[in-house]
């Protein structure tokens, strides 16, 4: 219970006496002051819904990687995904001249790791392979490209 100092309670009592006018007797004043304090307390303690950062953001992610073509890009990326128990649902790749682009649609629902951790692992593996890797939840693409 929040503490009220004496002055605050006295002011409250004074106001109660003023408002009650002829009905003011010690018992009524005490009742009114107690009720007012209880009400203040209730307002102060009304809980705000708890903030949860674990928000459902979906379990399908899209990994896009670009870089110079070389042996082992697909193997490298799928290896790190397999280690994290991520399921590759679809992939598309293209080689334009020397330049390699790959997109993987991945289900992370069976992984014991959070999105952040998987993202960091894939980006780190990409760096070893000299690839620029972007990892995003699938929803942003659906939002932008589908009505």
């Amino acid at each position: 219970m929040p503490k009220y100092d004496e002055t605050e309670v006295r002011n409250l009592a004074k106001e109660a006496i003023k408002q009650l006018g002829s009905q003011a007797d010690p018992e009524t004043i005490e009742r009114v002051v107690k009720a007012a304090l209880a009400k203040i307390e209730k307002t102060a303690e009304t809980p705000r819904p708890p903030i949860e950062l674990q928000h459902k953001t979906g379990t399908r992610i899209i990994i896009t990687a670009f870089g110079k073509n070389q042996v082992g890009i697909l193997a490298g990326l799928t290896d790190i995904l397999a280690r994290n128990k991520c399921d590759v649902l679809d992939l598309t790749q293209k080689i334009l001249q020397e330049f390699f682009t790959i997109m993987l649609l991945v289900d992370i629902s069976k992984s014991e790791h959070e999105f952040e951790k998987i993202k960091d692992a894939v980006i780190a593996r990409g760096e070893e392979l000299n690839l620029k890797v972007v990892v995003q939840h699938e929803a942003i693409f659906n939002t932008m490209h589908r009505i």
Partner: protein
Amino acid sequence: MPISLEEILETIRMTEVEHFDIRTVTMGINIKDCASDDLNKLKSNIYEKLMRIGSEHVASARKVESDYGLSIANKRIAVTPLSIAADGFHEEDYVEIARVMDKASDELGIDYLGGFSALVQKGWSMGELNLIKAIPEALSVTKHVCSSINVATTKAGINMDAVKLMGKIIKQTAAKTADKDAIGCAKLVVFANVPEDNPFIAGAFHGVSEPDVVVNVGLSGPGVILRAVREAPDNMDFADLSDRIRRMAFKITRAGEFIGKKVASLQNVPFGIVDISLAPTPMPGDSVADILRAMGLEDVGAAGTTAALALLNDSVKRGGLMASSNVGGMSGAFIPVSEDYGMIQAVKKGHIPIEKLEAMTCVCSVGLDMIAIPGDTSEQVISGVIADECALGIMNNKTTAVRIIPAPGKNVGDSVTFGGLLGEAPIMSVSKLDNIIFINRGGRFPAPVKGINN
């Protein structure tokens, strides 16, 4: 239909190459319930409410950035106009409140806090007048706090006393922050027909009819629109050009709304609006001026510039309105000088005078924005510039504003540099003809016939 590789690559090109990002997620917080006639109590009420409600704002925005690979340039807070939550205080009291707001902003890690504001289009209370007088000091002793004053509406007309006073306040603000190129003036905007849910600084505040807390979002995507226009062949007609812009605006608005809703839901707060203004940045390629040039003008300032801007603004609205049911705020192209690389270059080359910019404000969302003028410009001239923009606003029933920087000690040929998103502004020349009798008339400029529409 599954998402194709081309669509994914387009999204990534937008964010990685064309600077498409979310300019701001702005959390609006009602502080009417912080009111108290005891200054210390009021200050602690405001501080506590900001710290309580805003505690997860930056973390939530960062999480959404990471999840969806779209960067959010600024995390901001807007509060109820301070003069409403704290009327009847003295000038120095408002400065103290501004300090408390700044402290909370620092601790929360947000970039800007808007709402050191008053709505005085028809007149002012003593508190509102004191708040306005406190602006120069408040903006010079704080880093994050931004101020906006609404001095005109189509329904009320123009408060010419406020217009007169704001010329003086802008000069004083410039003088107080002279050592930093008058940066205080970059955080102060004078409005006509101010929107109450605008997420953009310096004009953001949390309107009195808004819910207790809300998250609004503002976009930044000139680079993306620029590509759409650049790729159009020279002989493409205006209807097709508009269609290209519209399609691109649709995509970025969808992304903006999505991001705003995610940031809001992470904090269990309602989502408000997406503002589809195309906020430029001082980075090359992320410029509204460049879009106008890509339409076929040698530079902004060429005959046809106003028409080009009108086409851009309207096309963006078409796409944006299709994409989201929650479009609000300013929602029109911004043409700030210092914050737009192409605009800075055009001013440096002498291609665009302030009068052309004024004409352009008739067809886009804000007004004379981030324009630096010589430091010896009189307060009456600044008031005159404000009066002109207000007249455009009330007569055309639209928002207009003035954010002008009379840079102390500087003249045409010099420039001011703020850095970051505020950029740099070459000093522009402004008419020095005498208008003192006109400005000193004061009183209320009557509401236009257009405003009497019932």
